[in-house]
């Protein structure tokens, strides 16, 4: 390959909307790597791309859906999960992926997040956590560590932040993992596993926002922030998730934390309907119940 060719082609071109590139992300931002790693996992998963939808909300990460050559839905702020829920339940043959940021999924969309996990809707949710609101200029949010500076915490954040992995596990997600965007191999494996697993699967990616969060907290440029990930990451699959919170000390516990089986929303629905209904005036006739059981 000549140098020119290297510059013109990207190995993932076939899965990107080339006509939407260049993307809007800053240089040094971790989002490009998050997207690239996701695409590698997607290709490996052998999922039918024609039957796959990707749904985002609003924010820097929210732009992901628009760059990927799948059915792309860029929805309202915080709402990708309920949109995806409608999409998936209305056509269970679709593979539905939610790709969005921490502010979108956990702050304004927090209620939707815990309920979709509770119901175990068959969705893969990938959340890029950069501890801040990038798109609007680096404000604080529910993931901003205590004492961190942001555009709206000029005296340092004093609110207790969410530990996303702990929240997802507590809400009922059947798969919960966290990696930094530096660890592309493990991250890719995790996303691949999440894509192939039935139920509400959740992957949190820790990723640098050097332009805002990094600058305001004097964490250096993108490269410096990633080098710090290398120093501070601790792999512990068996960690008690309540001890895996992220603070200003920079320590990041990563791993495949949760991997359990639980029937999905659709499975429970039909299984439940198939059972005799003692409180219903007219019970569902036996033969019909069999049909339902068969379906479940």
């Amino acid at each position, binding site marked *: 390959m000549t140098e020119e060719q290297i510059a013109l082609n990207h190995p993932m071109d076939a899965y990107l*909307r080339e*006509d*939407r590139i260049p993307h809007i992300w800053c240089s040094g931002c971790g989002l490009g790597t998050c997207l690239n790693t996701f695409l590698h996992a997607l290709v490996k998963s052998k999922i039918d791309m*024609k*039957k796959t*939808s990707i*749904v985002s909300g609003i924010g820097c990460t929210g732009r992901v859906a*628009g760059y990927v*050559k*799948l*059915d*792309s*839905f*860029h*929805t*309202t702020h915080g*709402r990708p999960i*309920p*949109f*995806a*829920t*409608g*999409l*998936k*339940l*209305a*056509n269970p*043959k*679709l593979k539905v992926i939610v790709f969005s940021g921490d502010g979108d999924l956990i702050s304004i969309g927090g*209620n*939707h997040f815990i*309920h979709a996990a509770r119901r175990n809707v068959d969705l893969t949710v990938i959340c890029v956590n950069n501890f801040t609101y990038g798109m609007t200029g680096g404000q604080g949010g529910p993931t901003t560590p205590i004492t961190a500076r942001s555009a709206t915490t000029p005296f340092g954040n004093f609110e207790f932040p969410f530990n996303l992995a702990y929240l997802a596990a507590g809400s009922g997600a059947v798969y919960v993992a966290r990696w930094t965007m530096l660890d592309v191999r493990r991250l890719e494996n995790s996303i691949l596993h999440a894509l192939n697993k039935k139920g509400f699967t959740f992957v949190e990616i820790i990723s640098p926002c050097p332009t805002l969060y990094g600058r305001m907290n004097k964490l250096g440029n993108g490269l410096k922030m990633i080098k710090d990930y290398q120093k501070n990451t601790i792999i512990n699959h068996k960690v008690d998730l309540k001890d895996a919170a992220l603070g200003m000390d920079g320590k990041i516990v990563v791993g495949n934390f949760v991997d359990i089986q639980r029937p999905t*929303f*659709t499975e429970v*629905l*039909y299984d439940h*309907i198939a059972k005799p209904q003692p409180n219903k005036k007219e019970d*569902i006739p036996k033969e*019909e119940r069999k*049909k*339902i059981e068969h*379906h479940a």
Partner: protein
Amino acid sequence: MLEVEKPVLTGSHFMNGDNACAEGALAAGCRFFAGYPITPATEVTERMSERLPLVGGVYIQMEDEIASMIAILGASWAGKRSMTATSGPGFSLMMENMGLGIMIETPCVLVNVQRGGPSTGLPTLVGQGDMMQARWGSHGPYEIIALCPSSPQEMFDLTIKAFNLSEEFRTPVLVMADEVVGHMSEKVVIPSPEKIKIHPRLKTKEKPEKYLPFKPNKNLVPPMANAGEGYHIHITGLTHDEKGYPVINAKTQQKLVKRLLDKIRLNRDKIIILEEDNVEGADVVVVSYGISARTAVLPIQQARKEGTKVGLLRLVTVWPFPEERIKALAKKVKAIVVPELNQGQISLVVERCAAGNAKVISVPHMGGETHDPKEILAAIKQAVKK
């Protein structure tokens, strides 16, 4: 999906408006419902929870009305006819994603069984105070289609109509009912399935490489491709070009939003349904909708007995508003009387259209009960006096 029950319950029934609405949805082919319990729309939700899973559909109770509204958009993109039902407080929460539905041109139906407001207001009692919210409640410029049923039978018929309009014009359609119509029980006749007109989804015939998801047909409506059909559609709530890609400038905004408005405005003759009774030659015409149009029947009869020439024009479609008809009417009659269970929301629109050619008398009511027919009779008498 399983189908162990009939989706269309052909025959004569005695049922309330909320249940008739649910049956109308099923008859129209609705197979996805997302909702949240709220008085006085709960019966729609309950009936859907009981019926949908057994006719090959999906019912889900979402965590709130924000989620309900956007879940039905997702379901519609998956190719299912979808609906939600709510009342005032929930309607407020749905405004956000009703706007998204308009912007990304998603067929779906939103039922509002109106109660008294503002805020929690009168959960169990009637109101018609959300008529302007329907028109202007979501941010930015938009046009909306809103139908107002006056009986349980119309809860059935107009819900079907709403689904058909939503598919024909690729937009969310509102059924703006009210507590009385939702809760009253009357005879509802459900025809056989082959007698029910269903407007199919307007699908593209283009190949994926050539398809532009927002390139309109001559009706200004773009044919659709659903998710999972290999088109790799790009859908965004941002201002977008025909490809669906975001383009953030005034020119694209002008082109897109003007078409979104025009597809309703310029097709209004196909959308607007009015019911007129003795309007020709009348001196006074009562213009009303929903339960208030029914309350008006008795005082109109009384006034006629007393020798006044009174007509009734019932707005079955409130939005888009029948401006031309009201303009023409105002030139022929002395006065227009507008009873409604709010402080004159539609009356103001009538007044604007009448443009001084006829006197417009609002008969407002704060809600909580229907008008006393005497109030409407008094307004009619006042109208002919001066």
